[in-house]
């Protein structure tokens, strides 16, 4: 099953250890994560379900293309990494 990991900056706010979840797309895999940890949803996607502007999801090291409907395919052994853009001051 795909494995989803989360940036340490997010783990500081919500308890979200790496998880192996079912799913053939990024959206399905994340939905499985949100079912386990409902609080996590609003930290990763916005009110309409699109990726937050400053959140980046990588599948096998490549940033996903469809940030709105999350339809990028994930292989059964994929590594999905939920990261954040760098910014601040």
């Amino acid at each position, binding site marked *: 099953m795909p494995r989803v990991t989360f940036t340490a900056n997010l783990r500081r*706010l919500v308890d979200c250890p790496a998880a192996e979840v079912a799913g053939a797309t990024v959206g399905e895999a994340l939905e499985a994560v949100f079912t386990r940890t409902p609080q996590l949803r609003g*930290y990763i996607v916005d*009110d309409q379900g699109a990726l937050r502007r400053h959140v980046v999801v990588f599948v096998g090291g490549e940033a996903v293309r469809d940030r709105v409907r999350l339809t990028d395919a994930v292989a059964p052994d994929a590594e999905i990494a939920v990261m954040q853009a760098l910014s601040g001051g």
Partner: protein
Amino acid sequence: MDTLLVGTRKGLFTLRGNEVARVSFLGTAVTAVLQRNGAIYAAVGHGHFGAKLHRSMDEGETWQEVAAPKWPEKPADIDDRSPTTGAPVPWSLNQMWVFEADPREPQALWCGTIPGGLFHSTNGGDSWRLLRPLWDKPERRQWFGGGYDFPGIHSICVDPRDPRRVLVGVSCGGAWQTDNGGESWSVASRGMFAAYMPPEKAEDPVIQDPHRIVRCAGAPDVFWAQHHNGVFRSIDGAQSWQEVKINPSSFGFAVAVHPRDPDTAWFVPAIKDELRVPVEGALVVTRTRNGGKSFETLRSGLPQRHAYHLIYRHGLEVAPDGQTLAMGSTTGTLWLSRDAGESWTALSRDLPPVYCVRFGGAA
């Protein structure tokens, strides 16, 4: 003053007895705060991970994340775009900007947000409802952002005589008023004018930029507005507004009105919109006690040389006693006055940039 809550760019600071007694959410923006009915509500802005609402039932010792206002699903056939930039208006919470109590129920709250949503909760933030009649008004599509990419509701003025009567202030979208708890809304910013618009649009009430609007609790037909282009007052329940000129400047963000005397109000002027620092590097508070006929310039205790503080729209508040005021600046200084602004004492000069100050136990 029992408790003063100070939301900053990097945390929530709780002062008791003029000392910082507690620091919450250190490192994270706190954009709005309210203490009401035994609960403290803190709007926490995580930047990357969005805006979250936290509630404390034990004076800030522990916090629980509760529901943040959330937009309903955006219909696919709606082309909702900023009239100035053409960018799609996100039907998604960016920032909680202000909380106010709804006196109809002990757990009832209003929340104004960016983009310009007005939300209501009947259960202390466990769930929220978007006021669709305001969001769906065709004129809402004319609102635009001022300082932010999208417009926002920063002022919610409840009429204590009838809490179904509510006025909201929008940057940039004027003022709107309901007399039925939000079922219908009418524009309430006639008389304001916008020098940042072409002449034919300058008096359009729908695109005005009131930076902050406050209502006198003891005389609820009187409002004061610190607008992008000056100070305005209404004495007829926001049916009309009249400009009030102030020296040394009428530009600023914050305004406070005395809770019982509608003729007494405080402002913190900056030079002008393209130069947002105090006049001649001297921070002052201006106060009227005669309904705007004249203003006093109050300086005692405030820095008068090379002082470049700006007071944001929620950075000035008067306590229910009408004598105690708190003020926090972008430079991280927090002042308190116990004599209606005659003199000020710096409680700290070293905080992060201050977004909002709020007396505990209010409302």
